[in-house]
């Protein structure tokens, strides 16, 4: 399902003393099957954009096109549930949304709200719990007896069980240890490939963005600062560094090499392997002297 934001503006608490402009003139296209990463500092408007993707927020200006639906400020929209069924959001710290007596019931909650029968929902729960790397016997436990990391996985399973076409992730690995972090990111990536989903990842981590995303959008003070493929974005990392944003280690290393030897590598490297190859090439050519 294609999603496209067209000149979207959003003001929080419009017409009150607390009115605050969160995003402005934001246009982003997310064609079906894209893995898009949105990066920016706290308060740059990332989370606000994310909430537009399934019509939790409606733009105060501009429009959001989700599949064949158009969401604007103009009229009260009916049947937004249809959108939410197809766009699943994993919010930050999703473990805060758990409430049922058992893990199974909690995972079934989403699908059943969207009209899936109980039997089908249970099948989905079984599948989802395996996807997030937990064992089936956890299904009968109370979600509140689990560890923090397990709760996070259960909450994610709850969104996966809805089987959305588009999956939106708001810092899904915040507060996890490095290993859990990688496992979860890899799991989402695999899912993205296998089911041909669109994935939108909101993150602080340039490493994650450069490693998984096809497209990166950099947000700065509520506006799109830059967008493009990781290679385009990191071709000139100076601007990013000026904004105080992190640059992936590989890019930083390439920059150092180029500075030290006063030469340019043939292309902007994103992965470690690419960089190794490029450096090898450099030495083979006989440079640097």
């Amino acid at each position, binding site marked *: 399902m294609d999603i496209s934001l067209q000149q979207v503006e959003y003001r*929080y*608490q419009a*017409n*009150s*003393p*607390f009115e605050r402009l969160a995003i402005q003139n934001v246009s982003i296209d997310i064609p079906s099957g894209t893995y898009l990463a949105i990066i920016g500092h706290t308060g740059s408007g990332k989370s606000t954009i994310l*909430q537009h993707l*399934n019509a*939790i927020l409606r733009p105060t200006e501009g429009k959001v096109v989700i599949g064949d639906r158009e969401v604007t400020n103009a009229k009260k929209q009916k049947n937004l*549930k249809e959108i*939410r*069924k197809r766009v*699943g*959001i994993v*919010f930050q710290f*999703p473990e*805060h*949304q*758990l*409430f049922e007596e058992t893990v199974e019931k909690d995972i079934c*909650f*989403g699908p059943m*709200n*969207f009209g899936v029968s109980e039997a089908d929902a249970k099948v989905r729960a079984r599948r989802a719990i395996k996807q997030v790397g937990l064992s089936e016997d956890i299904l009968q436990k109370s979600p*509140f007896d689990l560890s923090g990391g397990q709760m996070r996985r259960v909450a994610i399973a*709850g*969104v996966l069980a*809805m089987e959305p076409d588009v999956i939106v992730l708001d810092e899904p690995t915040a507060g996890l240890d490095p290993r859990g972090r990688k496992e979860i990111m890899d799991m989402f990536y695999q899912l993205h490939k296998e089911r041909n989903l669109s994935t939108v990842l909101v993150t602080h981590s340039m490493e994650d963005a450069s490693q998984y995303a096809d497209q990166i959008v950099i947000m700065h003070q509520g506006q799109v600062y830059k967008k493009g493929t990781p290679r385009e974005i990191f071709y000139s990392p100076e601007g990013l560094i000026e904004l105080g944003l992190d640059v992936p280690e590989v890019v930083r290393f390439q920059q150092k090499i180029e500075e030290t030897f006063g030469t340019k590598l043939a292309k902007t490297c994103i992965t470690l392997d690419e960089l190794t190859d490029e450096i090898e090439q450099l030495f083979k050519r006989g440079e640097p002297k």
Partner: protein
Amino acid sequence: MMEKMIFGRYIPAVSPMHRMDPRSKIILVFLFVCVVFIANNAITYGLLAIYTFLMVLSSKVPIRFILGGLRIVLWLVLFTLVLHLFFTKEGEVLFHWGAISIYEGGLKQGIFISVRFFLLILMTSLLTLTTTPIEITDGIEVLLNPLKKIKFPVHELALMMSISLRFIPTLMEETDKIMKAQTARGVEFSGGPIKDRVKAIIPLLIPLFIGSFKRAEELATAMEARGYRGGEGRTKYRQLRWSLVDTVMLLILAVVTAALVLFRS
């Protein structure tokens, strides 16, 4: 979704109301609550309404914002009015239809009591709108100090108040977040049949409760880690100071009270 709530919210501005000492503000509102009951006819209620309106104006809090925030309360006021219309049976019958008859006394009572109710809420919200929660509790603590003599836990009460006031916005934020997360999971909080909307409360309330308990525990640990041991020997960073504005504000209320006593029937 909870953006319009005004209870317990502070709006910074420069105004006489904001400049007042919290002690005098609390006394003012407390006296107002008593004075409201002096009014018993159109003139006195009119006077009260004018006074309240001027107070709101002088506070520089946008009126539209206050009224927007009080919309829920307005329903309560309307409810009171309707209740009185139907159940107070005094004076002449104004309207009669089947089993329903509306009396003159009922209409008058209904209007007066709703106005009184509305003014009370307006003034008390004005207190929290122009005073930071910390100032309010400081004020209350000082005002209640004499009760310490009879072993009343004044400091603890003040602390409890400041903690609950402090966490209202946090709780609101949390409610908003959980509502959004559950909306994304297909819950409909607004719209849809009543039965579904009532059921939607469970996935909201349970996470909220669990979060609050967790936070309470964390707060207690954090306080202990920073050496909190009750109010003993504690000094204050913010000193309260009585100034001219406070005296003037209380005098104005005194004048209004005198006028009310004069004009009441």
